[in-house]
C-alpha cells in the first residue's frame, strides 16, 4: 500500500516535471524566447508536409514580425504548446485543418463579440452557422499583420477589397432579396474610373470600417448612387435634380433612372461611346418611343447606316437635365432644338434639305407667337400656351421624310394636324401654309407680286416723302 502511494506520488511529481521545466525555461528566456524560436524559423526553406502531401513553409520574416501588431507578443503566447524545451510534432491533414485549429487561438485575444462589431466579419459568422469554419488567417497575416488603423493592410485598396468582393458573396435586403457583391475587377480596369480607388466612390468604406447599411430593396440601394456620384459630378447632379427623372423619384416613382442605371456602375465608360448604345440605353425604359424612332428617318439612318448626323434621344431631350416632353419649356424650345441641325446649311446641304424651314416657321404666326410667349414668360411669369411647333405637325419620334410622298396626301394629313387645334378648319385652310418656303413667282405668284409691290412702294413713298420735306425746308431757308 505504502509502495503504491509512493509510486502514485512519484507519478504525480513526474507529471509536474514538464510544467516546472517550462516555467523554469520561460523565466530564464522570456525575453529571449522569440530569438530562440527565430533561430530556426528565420531560415528560409524550412518546410513541413501535411498528411495530404502539401508542403508548408514554417519560415517567419523577422523584419515583418517586428513591424506587425503582434511584435510585443512572444511566440509562446500564441503557440502555447511550444517552448524551448518542448516542440511537439503535430500532424494535420491539410492546411485548412491547420488554419482552423490555429484560428481558435486568435479568439483568445479577439473574442467573437468584438469581431462581430465589424460588419465585414458578418459573412464569416454567417458561414459558421451553416457549418463553415472561421479562418482568421485567410485575411489577416498573424506574423506580418499591421494595425488596420492607419496601416497598410494590403499592397493596394483594390486588392484589399477584392479579397472579399472577388468572391461570390451576397448582400441581403430587408425585403428579402439578395444580390451578389462580386465585382468584376476587369470591368473596373477598363472603365473611366480605373485610376480611382474603391473608397473614392464607396466613401463610407475604409480599410478600418465597413459600415453595415440596411436597404429595404435593391432599388433603394441603387438610388443611393446619386450621393456617390455627386461627390465628383456635382454639376451633373444639379442638372439631374431639375430633371423629370429626379422629380419622379422624389414623388415616389423609384423606377426612374439614377446615375448607374444609364451609365453602369463599375464598368462605366466615357460619354462619347457609340451613339447607338446611347439610344439603346434609353430604350431600356422607353421602348415604345424607341420602336417609333427606329422606323423614323432619323432612327433608321442611325441604326442601319450608323449615320452620325442623325439625332439620338439626348440631342433633343438632353441627358441629365431632361424635362418632361409635356413641359412647356421643353415644348417651346423644340424649334430651337430642331434648328440646331435644320438651320445648319452645311449639314442640311449634305442631304439636299432647305434651311428655310426654321426661318419661315419663326417668322410665321406660330413662330412669332411662340417667340413672344417665350420672352414674355420670363417677364410676366406666365406659362406659355401650347403653340404648334415642329413636332406638332411633323411628329416627333416617328418623323418620316416628306420626299416621295404625294402632295395631296401631305395636305390631307396636314389638315388633320391643323384640326387638332383649329377644329373647324376646312381643306382650304392648310393652303395658308407655304410649305416652309419663301414666296416665289412659280409657287405663289400673287403673294410674290404683292410682296414686291409693297417693297418697291415703301421705298418710293419714303424717298418721296423725304424729298418733299427736304424741298420744303430748302424753300424756307431760301425765302429767309
Amino acid at each position, binding site marked *: 500500500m505504502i509502495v503504491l502511494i509512493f509510486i502514485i506520488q512519484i507519478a504525480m511529481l513526474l507529471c509536474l516535471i514538464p510544467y516546472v521545466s517550462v516555467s523554469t525555461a520561460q523565466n530564464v528566456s522570456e525575453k529571449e524566447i522569440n530569438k530562440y524560436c527565430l533561430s530556426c524559423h528565420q531560415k528560409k526553406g524550412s518546410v513541413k508536409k501535411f498528411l495530404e502531401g502539401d508542403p508548408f513553409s514554417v519560415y517567419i520574416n523577422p523584419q515583418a514580425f517586428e513591424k506587425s501588431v503582434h511584435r510585443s507578443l512572444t511566440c509562446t503566447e500564441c503557440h502555447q504548446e511550444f517552448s524551448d524545451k518542448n516542440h511537439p510534432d503535430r500532424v494535420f491533414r491539410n492546411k485548412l485543418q491547420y488554419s482552423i485549429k490555429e484560428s481558435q487561438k486568435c479568439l483568445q485575444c479577439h473574442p467573437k463579440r468584438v469581431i462581430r462589431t465589424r460588419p465585414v466579419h458578418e459573412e464569416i459568422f454567417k458561414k459558421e452557422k451553416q457549418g463553415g469554419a472561421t479562418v482568421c488567417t485567410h485575411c489577416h497575416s498573424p506574423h506580418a499583420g499591421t494595425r488596420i488603423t492607419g496601416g497598410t493592410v494590403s499592397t493596394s485598396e483594390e486588392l484589399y477589397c477584392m479579397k472579399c468582393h472577388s468572391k461570390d458573396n451576397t448582400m441581403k435586403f430587408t425585403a428579402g432579396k439578395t444580390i451578389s457583391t462580386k465585382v468584376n475587377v476587369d470591368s473596373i480596369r477598363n472603365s473611366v474610373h480605373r485610376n480611382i480607388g474603391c473608397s473614392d466612390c464607396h466613401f463610407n468604406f475604409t480599410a478600418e470600417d465597413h459600415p453595415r447599411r440596411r436597404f429595404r430593396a435593391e432599388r433603394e440601394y441603387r438610388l443611393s448612387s446619386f450621393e456617390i456620384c455627386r461627390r465628383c459630378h456635382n454639376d451633373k447632379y444639379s442638372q439631374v435634380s431639375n430633371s423629370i427623372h429626379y422629380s419622379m423619384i422624389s414623388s415616389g416613382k423609384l423606377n426612374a433612372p439614377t446615375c448607374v442605371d444609364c451609365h453602369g456602375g463599375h464598368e462605366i465608360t466615357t460619354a462619347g461611346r457609340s451613339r447607338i448604345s446611347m439610344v439603346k440605353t434609353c430604350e431600356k425604359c422607353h421602348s415604345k418611343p424607341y420602336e417609333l424612332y427606329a422606323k423614323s428617318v432619323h432612327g433608321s439612318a442611325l441604326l442601319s447606316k450608323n449615320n452620325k448626323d442623325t439625332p439620338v434621344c439626348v440631342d433633343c431631350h438632353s441627358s441629365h437635365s431632361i424635362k418632361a416632353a409635356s413641359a412647356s419649356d421643353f415644348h417651346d424650345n423644340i424649334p430651337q432644338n430642331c434648328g440646331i441641325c435644320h438651320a445648319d446649311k452645311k449639314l442640311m446641304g449634305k442631304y439636299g434639305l432647305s434651311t428655310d424651314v426654321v426661318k419661315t416657321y419663326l417668322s410665321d404666326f406660330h413662330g412669332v407667337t411662340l417667340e*413672344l*410667349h417665350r420672352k414674355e414668360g420670363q417677364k410676366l411669369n406666365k406659362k406659355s400656351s401650347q403653340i404648334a411647333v415642329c413636332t406638332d405637325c411633323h411628329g416627333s419620334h416617328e418623323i418620316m421624310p416628306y420626299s416621295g410622298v404625294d402632295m395631296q396626301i401631305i395636305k390631307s394629313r396636314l389638315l388633320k394636324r391643323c384640326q387638332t387645334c383649329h377644329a373647324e378648319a376646312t381643306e*382650304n385652310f392648310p393652303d*395658308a401654309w407655304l410649305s416652309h418656303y419663301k414666296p416665289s413667282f412659280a409657287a405663289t405668284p400673287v403673294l410674290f407680286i404683292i410682296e414686291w409691290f*409693297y417693297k418697291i412702294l*415703301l421705298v418710293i*413713298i419714303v424717298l418721296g416723302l423725304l424729298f418733299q*420735306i427736304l*424741298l420744303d425746308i430748302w424753300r424756307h431757308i431760301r425765302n429767309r
Partner: protein
Amino acid sequence: MTSPEQIDNMGNIKRFNAYRIIEHYALIILFVILALTGLPQKFYFLKISQSILVLFGGIDNARVIHHFAAIFFTILIVQHILANFIGIVFLQWRPSMLIAYKDFHDSVHNVRYCLGLVEQPAMCGRYTYKEKGIYWLTLTGGLQMMLTGFVLWFPITVTNYIHGQVIPIAKTIHSSEAMLLFLLIVTWHIYDSVFSPDVFPLNKSIFTGYITKKQMQKLHPLELLRQKEDAQEGEEKTET
C-alpha cells in the same frame, strides 16, 4: 364755316366743325393703339417690341386690344364713308377732298417753286394736295387694313369660302400697309402739321376748329377767296 359769322373773337376763321374734330381725335387714339399693339408683332424680334407688348400684358392681351381697337376703327371708317356719301349726294356737301387735276399741277408747281423756277407757290383750296394725299392714302389704307385684318382675325371662317393662300396674302398686305401708313403719318403728316415752318409749333386747327387768317391766307388762299365770295352771296353751304 363758310359764313362770316364763323369767325371767333380773335379773328380766326372756323375750319372744322365738332364732328371732324372728334373724328380726328378718335383716329389719333385708334391709330396709336393699333400701331402700338400691331407693329411690335411685325418687329417681334426687337427688344423694344417685347417691352411694349409686356406693357399691354403680353401678346395675347395686345391682340385682344388690337382687335377691339380694330372694331372701333372699322366703325370710324364706315361711318365716315357713309356720312360723307350721304352728305355729298343728298345734303349738297362740297366734295372738297376729291382729287382733281389741279392737285397734280399744284404738286409739280410747288416742286418748281421750291427749286426756284417759279416765284409764287401753288394757290391751294380748302385742302392742299398734301392733305388730300394723306387723307386718301389713309382712307384706302384703312380699308385694306380692315379687310385683311378681318381675314387674319377669322382665318378659319374665311378659308371656308376662299383659297387658303388668302391668309399669307392678307398678312403681307396688312403688315406692309401698316408700315406704309405708319411712315406716312410719322414723316409726312407730322412734318406737315408740326415741324413745317409754316405751322410750327403745331397746326392746331383740327383740335380747336379755327385757323388764323394769316395761315389761311398762306395755306388755303383759294378757300379764303371762296369764303369771301360766298359771304358776299350770303349763301350757306355745309362743308365736308
